[in-house]
């Protein structure tokens, strides 16, 4: 089942396309990171996925073909929007009760024990909680709905490092223990490798790269060699970093492809890879039809 499927999806605000020609198929069971600079169209894509925005072009379905925003889709998706909007004047207990009353499924025991573990007082007003606690409350409410897909829009952007770590730990636990698929947007690349196993890279309203992290890493290499020969490499080059003597080429090539004489090949890290693509908005690496997870390919990079 694909947790999110889009076909030539586009969204226009006025005369500006926030998202164009977006075709994706994210299989279930992944923690998917949606990465890109501000204004890349990440929030637009997420809003389309949860039904807060209607497409200007194309189609978007979730949870194996349910139209985005339909009751059946909303039933299985929990969304935590940017800056985790909560009713500031309601108490934590009221927010729990509210969310429970707005959903068919709600695990109140989970919500209460999780909030207890986080030391979030039930009587306190949501607006009086710290930023980290508000984010944790919003996440707890979302997870207590027992979604199949958890959608998080810039969940950690406003959090300090500890709160950020705790938040992501909760997300990863839900993904690992309960099989919740996660789709999160971020412009923070640092923790990506630890968190995500599926990556969508966006810039300027277009999807630049999409695929399983292991596949993406396996199909890219960093070549280091004499700067004078940097222009002669024949395989697709994503990004060139030139020094006085040496040049570093990030290329699309499998591990078993031959390396030109005088050059050294290294496996590439996710952050490095993402940065290289973001610096070259015209480069693209889009997979064909979505494949099932391929365990073999992950061996190659290790």
């Amino acid at each position, binding site marked *: 089942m694909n947790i999110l499927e889009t076909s030539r999806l586009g969204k226009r605000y006025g005369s500006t396309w926030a998202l164009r020609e977006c075709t994706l198929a994210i299989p279930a069971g992944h923690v998917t990171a949606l990465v890109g600079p501000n204004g890349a169209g990440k929030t637009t894509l997420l*809003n389309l996925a*949860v*039904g*807060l*925005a*209607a497409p200007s072009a194309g189609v978007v379905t979730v949870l194996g073909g349910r139209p985005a925003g339909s*009751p059946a889709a*909303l*039933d*299985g*998706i*929990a*969304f935590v*929007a*940017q*800056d985790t*909007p*909560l*009713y*500031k004047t*309601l108490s934590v207990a*009221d927010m729990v*009760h*509210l*969310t429970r*009353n*707005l*959903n*068919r*499924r709600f*695990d109140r025991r*989970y919500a209460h*024990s*999780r909030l207890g*573990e986080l030391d979030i007082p039930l009587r306190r007003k949501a607006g009086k909680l710290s930023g980290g606690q508000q984010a944790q409350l*919003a996440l707890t409410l979302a*997870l207590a*709905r*027992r979604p*199949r897909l958890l959608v998080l829009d810039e969940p950690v952007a406003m959090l300090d490092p500890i709160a950020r770590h705790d938040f992501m730990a909760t997300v990863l*636990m*839900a993904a690992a*223990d*309960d*099989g*919740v698929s996660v789709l999160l947007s971020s412009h923070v690349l640092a923790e990506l490798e630890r968190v995500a196993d599926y990556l969508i890279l966006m810039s300027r309203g277009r999807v630049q790269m999409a695929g399983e992290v292991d596949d993406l890493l396996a199909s890219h290499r960093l070549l280091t060699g004499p700067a004078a020969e940097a222009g002669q490499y024949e395989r697709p080059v994503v990004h060139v970093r030139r020094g006085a003597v040496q040049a570093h080429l990030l290329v699309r090539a499998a591990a078993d492809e031959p390396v030109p004489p005088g050059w050294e090949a290294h496996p590439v890290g996710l952050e490095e890879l993402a940065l290289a693509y973001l610096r070259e908005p015209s480069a693209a690496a889009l997979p064909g039809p979505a494949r099932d997870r391929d365990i073999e390919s992950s061996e190659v990079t290790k």
Partner: protein
Amino acid sequence: MTALTLPARRDEDASLPPVSWRQMAWVTWRQHRMMLAGVAVVLGALAVTLVIAGLRLHHAFAAAIACRPVTSLACNNLVSTFNGTNGFLANGYVLQAVPALIGAFAGAPVLARELETGTFRYAWTQGFGRWRWTLAKLVPLAVTVAVAAGALSLLSAWYYQPYFAADNLNLSLASTPSLDSGTFGIRGIAFAAWTLAAFAIGALAGMLIRRVVPAIAATLAVYVGLGAATVLYLRPHYLTPVLTRNVFLPPASASYVSQWWTKGGRRQSPFAMTRIYDQLVPGVSSKAQKVHEFYQVVPRYLTQHGYTEWTRYQPGSRFWPFQWIEGGWLIVLSALLIAATVWLVRRRAA
């Protein structure tokens, strides 16, 4: 950690009942109880004011009409007392503001606040679904404030009774025709209907404008505009006005739609009639002792000289038909506005 693990219960999905409207009703109540309390406090304060002021008014009225002989100085004083009682309420404008305030401060924020603070991203992505959420908020709240306003209008109908009763008495008591524009909208079903409409206007304005304060301002402006248009252009034509000629003393409680003069079948311009009046006044004034006699003498004189006065008016007996007509179209309008709001929520997005 096991206690915090979410057991997989995917198979139960189909058997789970949908979210009930009752659950949603709790949400509406929890989120808007302060607003409803505010409405209750304002209406309650007005009710107390009306009762206290109303007792005074009714008392003054009873004293004035019981006084004999009518022409005595004591009786004149009692009439003046009644006429001067509760001047701030007499024209009905204070109460006319109530639906506008409810629409602006209770109706407009319902959606505007969600859109302004971003909480709609939470509310509209819950399993209940956003158009049902909107419907389950707007309809109960609109009906509640309308019913509360309706209760207050019973009191205001009682309060203004002396003015309508005075209309039929040939005393110099302050009186009001029953279709008077100042009080028509605050009695009968019109008050509740106007409150409903104001709330619906506020809700739609909030959805369209997405900011609380501008939505409040827009609601007030639209309400005032709609109210003025109703008084000036709609209400006089709910039913075909009665046409009559040469009525020097108009029927009690009539509300004029228009008046004009003809001579020899030709309609006279108001300008021409003013000139004729001006020429007559010096001669007539000496004969007419009182102002109202003047207004009888001049038309009588004109009639004798071949002029015919035509009057189109709405008789006061049409109060209830007019109430049902006005209440009816306001309720239909409110339903349309709420439906439009729900449709916008359903269709439109962030």
